[in-house]
């Protein structure tokens, strides 16, 4: 009774206190909400698909229906004659360089001219006054093909006729580390296959191109690498880069290089040709056909271990299907080979990696590329070692884990914090979720869903582990630099930085950094365009590191400019002055003034760059200090499997991650949850099927993304905050590591539940059936 009264009183006081507004969180380490969150949830945030311009034309791209064919002729006469059609362009209308490509490999034509190499390759583009007219005109372009046999099996790419003048082998890394004759007491082998994941960005691609009076063009795109895309576009249009401007519209979310240059480049060409603004909004089908996917991978592993379960030697062959064009396959292969042994100490490693060209849709950057595929394989191998020795899977992993100071198979010493053992122990010791036997039967969520066919008697529970590692920033000598400008005027700070907010939370982080450094609460982050100095692509946790670092330096320079006159006036150094809540106080609290007064109507600007320490390419033996930093993640998966039907439900994923420093707890949690869910998709449902090189089911009905019911309970058990001294704020990128580790953890748990080997991701139902094998 007294308790009730106390509660009632507490509620009463809470009600009385409501008029006092909650303090808005600010500064680093606080859960500052994104400034555009409200607009995004209310649907008022303008994305590229919402843009409009006077006299707008609509574009459509004709894509190849064949994965491999010789083009005999392209006849655009009919399409040009259709009323409403304003321009039809093909490879003959590309004024600049006809080839482009990410990752420094320009091997991809803007429009196919003699050969089409994958299903969905652009052949022509149309601008018309209505989207339907444009699509019909594109369909009316008559292309005569001589259909060729597609090479769709990456294993056949080695002997096949070259599909491209550059050959079929995009990269080969033969990593050799240690003694080739070393042998362990036990040997386990496995052959693993990883499917093709589509990044499936929320909001399909869209863009608007507006011609400029000076003969240039402005492109409004949801680009994640505006300067890179600008340079590609300028080269294609035969214009100097200054005459092409990319304005980044709101990015609806990106887990990959989300934009498809196959329509970006034609948009500008059509705008230049017609002199009118041209817009394209891709359908989901075009989106699946256009952008790059995760590399489907074939992995063959042999682990040697001693009787205690310590790994003696790892031999592996890794074959990445790069699809028709190189894109960033070289980077993905470097990550796959370098992390082929995982976060374990492996004294002897012999890894052969190849990325080969096929007639499948091109593969490119999707977060955790390379590292995710090998993680699924090496964790399966660790399970096999544990099974063979009769040890606990977590114990075998603990006996081998990497720590700071250990050497990777690439010869690189791990200098950053590597608390792998701590992470694994945290997830292992976390209490397991309760079995639903004490709750009413209607509340059970069995595999197959609430109205599914699940039968409690056929459901088995399994627990498995996955530990992943991923590198941050570009590798192998990539110049990872970012520039930011901070301006303060009238108590309002503005950040200008060409780092694109892709959902990773950069704009929020930039506000937090400036709030912390300058004590100014109101911070605006300017929209991004290519008139600003480059900040590089938004991937691999770059912007938290380099752009965040650049913002911090610029803010500190502004701070010095702001405090210098005061310090001079008071006769003390700037270090003795503090800024907090818009007030400047001296260390002893004697002197106090506001930021506004200190500014005295002045406008302070500073621009700074952040460039991490250089890296070197892997040499011909796969050796070299190729990575700036690494992040680690351990996940324990608990799954329920209906062992008769093979349906799997992930009950819980316990995550422990090495984050360096928590800069924004709410965003960090969201990023981990998003990454884990993407990993559950790879593990269970997401596979873009391409029989004979043709993309089947390019829609979100056929390509099954995890829904709210598929997403498991995600428990963030531990965030290890061991600061990385070389990283700004000591923080590590968090998005990619859970993507890498969670598919391996889910597969490991299904293995434990069913006793089946589970060598293929996504896990097919027939591989999760415990009977009749």
């Amino acid at each position: 009774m007294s308790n009730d009264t106390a509660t009632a009183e507490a509620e009463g006081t809470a009600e009385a206190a409501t008029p006092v507004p909650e303090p808005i969180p600010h500064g680093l380490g606080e859960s500052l909400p994104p400034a555009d969150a409200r607009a995004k949830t209310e649907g008022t945030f303008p994305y590229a698909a919402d843009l409009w311009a006077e006299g707008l034309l609509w574009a459509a791209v004709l894509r190849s229906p064949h994965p491999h064919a010789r083009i005999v002729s392209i006849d655009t006469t009919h399409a040009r004659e259709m009323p409403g059609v304003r321009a039809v362009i093909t490879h003959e209308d590309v004024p600049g360089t006809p080839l482009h490509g990410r990752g420094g490999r320009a091997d991809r034509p803007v429009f196919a001219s003699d050969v089409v190499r994958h299903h969905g390759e652009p052949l022509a583009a149309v601008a018309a006054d209505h989207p339907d007219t444009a699509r019909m005109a594109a369909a009316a372009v008559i292309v005569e093909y001589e259909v060729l046999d597609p090479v769709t099996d990456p294993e056949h790419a080695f002997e096949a006729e070259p599909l491209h003048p550059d050959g079929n082998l995009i990269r080969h890394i033969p990593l050799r580390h240690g003694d080739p004759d070393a042998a362990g007491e036990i040997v386990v082998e496995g052959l693993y296959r990883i499917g093709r994941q589509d990044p499936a960005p929320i909001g399909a691609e869209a863009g608007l191109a507006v011609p400029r009076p000076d003969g240039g063009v402005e492109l409004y795109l949801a680009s994640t690498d505006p300067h890179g895309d600008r340079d590609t576009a300028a080269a294609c249009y035969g214009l100097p880069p200054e005459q092409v401007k990319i304005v980044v519209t709101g990015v609806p979310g990106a887990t990959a290089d989300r934009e498809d240059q196959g329509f970006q480049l034609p948009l500008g060409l059509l705008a230049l040709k017609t002199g009118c603004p041209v817009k394209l909004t891709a359908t989901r089908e075009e989106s699946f056909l256009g952008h790059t996917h995760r590399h489907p991978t074939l992995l063959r592993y042999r682990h040697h271990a001693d009787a205690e379960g310590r790994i003696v030697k790892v031999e592996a062959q890794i074959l990445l299907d790069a699809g028709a064009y190189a894109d960033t396959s070289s980077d993905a292969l470097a990550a796959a080979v370098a992390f082929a042994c995982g976060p374990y100490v492996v004294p002897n490693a012999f890894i052969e990696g190849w990325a080969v060209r096929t007639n499948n849709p091109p593969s490119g950057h999707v977060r955790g590329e390379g590292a995710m595929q090998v993680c699924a394989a090496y964790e399966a191998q660790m399970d096999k070692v544990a099974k063979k020795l009769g040890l606990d899977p977590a114990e075998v992993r603990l006996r081998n884990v990497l720590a700071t100071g250990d050497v990777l198979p690439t010869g690189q010493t791990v200098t950053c914090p590597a608390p792998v053992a701590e992470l694994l122990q945290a997830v292992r010791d976390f209490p397991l979720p309760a079995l639903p036997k004490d709750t009413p039967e209607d509340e059970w969520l069995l595999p197959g869903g609430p109205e599914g066919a699940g039968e409690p008697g056929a459901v088995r529970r399994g627990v498995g582990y996955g530990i992943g590692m991923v590198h941050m920033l570009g590798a192998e000598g990539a110049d990872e630099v970012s520039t930011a400008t901070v301006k303060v005027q009238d108590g309002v700070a503005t950040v200008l930085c060409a780092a694109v907010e892709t959902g990773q939370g950069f704009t929020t982080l930039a506000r937090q950094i400036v709030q912390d450094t300058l004590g100014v609460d109101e911070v605006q982050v300017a929209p991004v365009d290519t008139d600003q100095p480059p900040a590089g692509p938004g991937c691999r946790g770059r912007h938290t590191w380099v752009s965040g670092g650049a913002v911090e330096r610029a803010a500190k320079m502004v701070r010095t400019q702001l405090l210098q006159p005061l310090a001079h006036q008071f006769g003390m150094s700037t270090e003795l002055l503090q800024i907090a809540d818009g007030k400047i106080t001296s260390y002893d609290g004697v002197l106090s003034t506001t930021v506004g007064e200190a500014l005295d109507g002045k406008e302070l600007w500073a621009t700074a760059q952040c460039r991490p320490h250089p890296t070197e390419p892997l040499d011909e033996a796969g050796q070299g200090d190729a990575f700036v930093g690494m992040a680690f993640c351990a996940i324990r998966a608990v799954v329920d499997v209906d062992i008769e039907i093979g349906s799997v439900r992930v009950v819980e994923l316990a995550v422990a991650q090495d984050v360096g420093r928590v800069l924004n707890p709410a965003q960090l949690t969201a990023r981990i949850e998003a990454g884990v869910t993407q990993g559950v998709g790879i593990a269970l449902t997401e596979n873009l099927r391409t029989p004979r090189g043709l993309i089947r089911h390019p829609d979100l009905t056929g390509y099954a993304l995890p829904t709210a019911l598929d997403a498991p309970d995600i428990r963030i058990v531990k965030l290890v905050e061991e600061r990385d001294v070389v990283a700004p704020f000591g923080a590590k990128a968090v998005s990619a590591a859970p993507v890498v580790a969670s598919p391996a953890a889910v597969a490991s748990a299904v293995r434990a539940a069913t006793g089946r080997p589970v060598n293929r991701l996504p896990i097919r139902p027939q591989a999760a059936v415990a009977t009749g094998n």
Partner: protein
Amino acid sequence: MQGKETPLNVTEEWQLVRIARSSDRRRSRLKTDHLTDETGECLLADPCVRALRRCARVATSALSGRTVRPHGRDQVGQREGAVGLTTHAPQAAQAVTLPTTLDEAVAALTAMPAAVPVAGGTDLMAAVNSGQLRPAALVGLGRISEIRGWQYQDGHALLGAGLTHARMGRPDFAALIPALAAAARAAGPPQIRNAGTLGGNIASAAPTGDALPVLAALEATLIIAGPDGARREVPVSHLLAGMEMLRAGELIGYVRVPLLHAPQVFLKATGRTGPGRATASVALVLDPARRGVRCAVGAIAPMPLRPLEAEQWVASLIDWDNGRAVVPEALHGFGEYVAAACIPDAAPDEDGSVPQLPPAVLHLRRTVAALARRALGRALS
């Protein structure tokens, strides 16, 4: 600019393009993808199933055929704009009729053969949004209150074709026809269930339509409204198999379902925990008056399959007078029987050897067996 002299030819070409694309779509919609392995080979070798598929293809072509109408020529005259060449098709030109009775709807369809009937629109709007279909006119069925509920008739329930899945999923309906309620609850995310209707599920005749195996197991009859107040009755299986088809101007008005007052089960296997298309589904109803078990397997063929022999066999094993008791082995045997009937072994080669079915098909068979066994077990428990 060049097109100015030949607008009519161009329009005709558009029609060709549209017709070609819409037939592509029909092909693609009818692909039984779930029955093909990665090489695209058809996994169902049984000639009877193939024949069924052919029939169903005819049936659905006939159903959707009338919805595919290219633009009329009159739109050529509506083009205008700065250079006189715009092809913007003013939306206002499209006629939308909102009849309030079934006969008015039929009359509207008869008066305007180019019109497309639309109820929930969950399939139709997907086709419109993807550019596969531009209906010249629409007849909205949402205001016909007579088909949005149900009534009782001689031990049967007369279900309106406009009943939404959401309505069918509610407890009062579940007390009447539990299997149909379970199918309705499994029919997709809430947005789809709120809009999609029973009649639409039948008219779309998608292989994965969740209501279809239930209606097949219940041996439901469709009451089809035709011009001038005509009503004719067609068994649902006849329509799905293409033995009888909807004629021009006809609409599915009601579905007559027997009220069996006995347990019914609908089970569905999907690729994920959240809403998804069925990879296989089983509907099973008991008919204690006739001492029968009726079962239909959905999603593995273009239309629901009825394993008649397995039904009769297991019905003879059930002790109907003694709490419908059955030996556990019979449940297992029923599952295997149903699965073997629906997914038969491949035809023997010339040398008499039976080729092994691909693993994906064997798994599908195992899934059907488990679903049928569980369904019967739950119905009899």
